């Protein structure tokens, strides 16, 4: 610790603190412009100048100068004030000062600083900038005239996002912020640059002229897309969500969001929202009242027993899932409940459930930056859970944490400094993990001895044998095993969900075995973290929204519909027609079932087939809890009133329970209290940032079954997955996300494209044994020859017409 004096206040801080940090600790406010607590010190703007007794004769930038023992700092002497005023005058010399029409007005640091320092006139005069405003993309407006060259956008896009879309161009007076060859932004549209820009140089286009900053109420919430569980602040005016508002102190992620969280909010107040219940009459869905609709549903469910079933989306709150489960199992008498097509949660429910003794991850997202080594299985995490990707970027770039990757395609992660990629053939992940485990045993690197069963099973997985199967050199496998064993703390990550059938129970077993053998469970910075798809995927498992004793799973439910044994199906928020594999079979099942009820925000492809459609609320209109993928339980409350006549599902299923003579939990707190996994957490006391539910590990070595996937010669190995810009099918109703990624596509390697003479953006046909779909080709350096990747979100060219749920599908690609 170092002790110093700032404005006559004594303060003790860590020895690597800066004067700025120390001042903050002492409660002294030093103005900053280019400094950001999330970024490395930069020292460009000179707003933070202070006087230091020991360094007389010049002014010292507080944000970059380390503290020393006995330092005497003065933060607002006349020379300091004068210097700051000059800095501001210089900044405003060429700045347009078009505050009346600038969306940053009221939230602008330049405005605030000018106000604080009473800069009401300028002693200098010069021409204003006249740079052209960049409107080359639908989401981010870049107005260099307002730029103060603080470099925060450049730095955040590099240091945290690892995208590097922006850079300083030219030098001296001509310096601007721009892109390569002044072209359009090549960008993830995470909006991080917008959020840190202190002025109106970077603005969110969808929000332009929607509201003055101060006219909005800011409502805290939790992002409704993926399992990361980012906290968001919604900007609300006239009962509409108009934007997301950056708050650098919000959440473990310090306000960082991805494109979905930042720009995908428009679905909430979308015109396409369902406003009233719909009932099919004369083969037409017509508007109806809630009473009629619910009475009809109740009548169908009454006494239906196991002829009824429910599929729910893990986007619902825990409390809603509790009620829907109660409705089905107690009032209706059916154990046929499931979510995520069943296999979408198998990695955690069955895989970790058996291997760790609890259907949850052992590690949390916070462990990533505390680890020594990250083993990422598939690189997709930066696309499926972009903000977790940021954590990895920071771990690797700022902390030098080692990154090992096992993946069937390259990606942003494999470009991080020092990242080591084992590029394996599609579908060979489990064999590869087994081989790593085998090396741990053979080289006496295992901390926990293997059970005889596991040891015996691993005999078939020598690195040499597996090398051939996976296309990864035996030595690379050995090196990975050694690195994993040598790391004091190591965390294994993998993505799971609807589009990742390869992330199944077997993969989870194989990964868990590594952690068990390597002695990496149960300590900080170590363990296994499954990155589950939806915002409440973990909650759905904790509530137990899975088939009960003797109940059917999702696939069996659909088969039951086709076979006629399931007569009433309630689908809450899932969109199987687009997101479950084998579209033809899904449609057949939904056609066949006698009575289909769909509760959703939109008239989805699935809802269009329903007999009754119930309009329900988005996360912005309801209360309850979501459980992030690392078992962080977080509370939300309504930011706006329900849209149209839509109702929160908590109310809908509560009413149905009552109609069927049951007793629903009266409040969210009451329903929450019924979730055994959350014993010890009080709903009422859940505050910002939530609370982690306990995970009690009982590790068991399970022998994974290895199924080798072979694709016929001459065919492409088609991998399915998620696109960075989307999550499930809900983001297709978020205009922002669609504006930058609105169409289905397939990624293929440059060599394959050249061979088939396919150019970027060309329409190609994918054909598998189950069908054909036309999508746009993208030529991508990520792909290896013979491997193709297609995201699954798009209804127009739904990939599930060619994909029937296999981890790898053989397809032909033709023009």
């Amino acid at each position, binding site marked *: 610790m170092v002790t110093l004096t700032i404005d006559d206040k004594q303060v003790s801080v860590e020895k690597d603190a800066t004067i700025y940090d120390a001042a903050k600790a002492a409660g002294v406010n030093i103005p900053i412009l280019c400094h950001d607590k999330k970024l490395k010190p930069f020292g460009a703007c000179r707003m933070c100048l202070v006087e230091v007794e020991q360094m007389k004769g010049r002014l010292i930038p507080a944000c970059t100068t380390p503290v020393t023992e006995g330092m005497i700092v003065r933060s607002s002497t006349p020379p300091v004030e004068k210097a700051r005023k000059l800095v501001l005058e210089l900044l405003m010399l060429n700045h347009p000062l078009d505050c009346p029409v600038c969306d940053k007005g009221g939230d602008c640091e330049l405005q605030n600083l000018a106000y604080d320092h009473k800069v009401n006139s300028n002693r200098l005069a010069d021409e204003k900038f006249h740079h052209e405003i960049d409107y080359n993309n639908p989401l981010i407006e870049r107005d260099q005239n307002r730029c103060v060259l603080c470099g925060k956008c450049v730095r955040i896009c*590099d240091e945290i996002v690892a*995208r*590097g*879309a*922006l*850079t*300083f*161009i*030219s*030098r001296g007076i001509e310096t601007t912020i*721009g*892109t*390569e*060859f002044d072209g359009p932004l*090549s960008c993830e549209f995470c909006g991080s640059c917008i959020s840190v820009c202190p002025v109106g140089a970077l603005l969110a286009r969808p929000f332009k002229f929607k509201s003055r900053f101060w006219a909005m109420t800011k409502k805290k919430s939790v992002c409704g897309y993926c399992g990361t569980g980012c906290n968001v602040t919604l900007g609300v005016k006239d009962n509409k969500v108009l934007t997301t508002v950056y708050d650098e102190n919000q959440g473990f992620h310090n306000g960082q969001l991805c494109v979905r969280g930042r720009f995908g909010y428009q679905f909430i107040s979308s015109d396409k929202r369902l406003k009233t219940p719909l009932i099919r009459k004369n083969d037409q869905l017509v508007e109806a009242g809630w009473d009629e609709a619910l009475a009809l549903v109740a009548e169908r469910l009454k006494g239906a027993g196991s002829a009824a079933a429910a599929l729910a989306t893990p986007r619902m709150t825990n409390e809603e899932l509790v009620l829907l489960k109660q409705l089905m199992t107690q009032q209706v008498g059916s154990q046929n409940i499931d979510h995520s097509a069943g296999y979408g949660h198998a990695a955690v429910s069955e895989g970790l459930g058996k291997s760790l003794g609890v259907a949850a991850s052992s590690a949390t997202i916070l462990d990533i930056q505390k680890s020594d080594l990250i083993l990422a299985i598939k690189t997709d995490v930066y696309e499926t859970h972009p903000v977790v990707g940021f954590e990895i970027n920071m771990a690797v770039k700022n902390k030098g944490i080692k990154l090992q990757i096992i993946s069937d395609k*390259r990606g942003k992660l494999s*470009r991080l*400094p020092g990242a080591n990629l084992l590029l394996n053939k599609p579908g060979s992940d489990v064999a590869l993990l087994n081989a790593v485990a085998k090396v741990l045993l053979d080289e006496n690197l295992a901390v926990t001895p293997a059970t005889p069963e596991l040891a015996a099973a691993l005999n078939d997985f020598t690195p040499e044998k597996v090398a051939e199967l996976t296309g990864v050199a035996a030595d690379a496998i050995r090196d990975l095993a050694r690195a994993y064993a040598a790391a004091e703390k190591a965390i294994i990550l993998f993505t799971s969900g609807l589009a990742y059938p390869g992330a199944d129970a077997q993969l989870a077993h194989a990964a868990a075995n590594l952690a068990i053998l390597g002695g990496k469970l149960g300590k900080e910075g170590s363990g296994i973290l499954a990155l589950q798809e939806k915002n409440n995927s973990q909650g759905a498992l904790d509530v137990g929204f899975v088939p009960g004793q003797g109940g059917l799973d999702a696939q069996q439910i659909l088969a039951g519909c086709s076979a006629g044994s399931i007569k009433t199906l309630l689908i809450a928020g899932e969109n199987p027609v687009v997101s479950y594999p084998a579209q033809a079979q899904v449609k057949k099942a939904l056609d066949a079932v006698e009575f289909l009820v769909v509760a959703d925000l939109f008239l989805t492809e699935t809802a269009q087939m329903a007999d009754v459609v119930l309009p329900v609320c988005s996360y912005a209109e309801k209360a309850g809890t979501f459980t992030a993928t690392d078992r962080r339980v977080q509370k939300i409350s309504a930011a706006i009133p329900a849209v149209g006549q839509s109702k929160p599902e908590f109310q809908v299923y509560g009413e149905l329970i009552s109609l069927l003579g049951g007793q629903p939990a009266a409040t969210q707190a009451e329903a929450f209290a019924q979730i055994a996994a959350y014993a010890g957490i009080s709903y009422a006391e859940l505050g910002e940032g939530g609370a982690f539910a306990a995970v009690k590990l009982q590790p068991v070595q399970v022998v994974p079954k290895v199924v080798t996937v072979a694709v016929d010669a001459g065919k492409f190995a088609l991998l399915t997955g998620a696109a960075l810009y989307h999550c499930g099918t809900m983001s297709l109703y978020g205009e922002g996300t669609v504006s930058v990624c609105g169409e289905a596509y397939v990624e293929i*390697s*440059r*060599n394959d494209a*050249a061979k088939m003479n396919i150019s970027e953006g060309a329409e190609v046909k994918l054909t598998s044994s189950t069908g054909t779909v036309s999508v746009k080709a993208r030529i991508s*350096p990520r792909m290896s020859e013979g491997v193709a990747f297609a995201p699954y979100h798009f209804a127009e060219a739904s990939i599930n017409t060619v994909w029937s749920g296999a981890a790898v599908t053989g397809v032909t690609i033709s023009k």
Partner: protein
Amino acid sequence: MSEAVATTETTEVEEPVIDLALAEEVIQKYKDIPGNLMPVLQGIQDAYGYVPRITVDYVAERLNVYPSQIYGVLTFYAQFHLKPRGKFIIRVCMGTACHVLGAERIKESFYDRIGIGHAETTPDRRFTFELVACLGACGMAPLSMVNDETYGKMTVQKVDEIIKEYSSLPI
């Protein structure tokens, strides 16, 4: 990563076909040296006469740096050229001494004859024209240069001679 890259790029009108093998050669030379971005870019400029856009993408991929970052470097240093350059680089000094002795007229004369202004290149890529600050030989003002050749005490007539001379050389 050893990815084959398409070797033609048609986005820039005048950009010729680029053989990336040259770029790869340069990269190979500096591959294992830390801080190799500057020498690689200089090597590329030497190999192609300028830094073609496609080589930027290629270097970005091979050295694992952002294309934007390379562009930042290229625009920071005046030595880099992003457009194809002529075989003969005509430089006209606009420094004080040369200015006083009529550099403006020399500039105009060149413009009249080859029709290009500062930092431009003729479509046949024979000439690139540049205005520069003091070339350090004020005694010979007004001064011009063609590649490494210096021409002192320039006159309109000399401009004609220079153009004639270099127009007859092969390109």
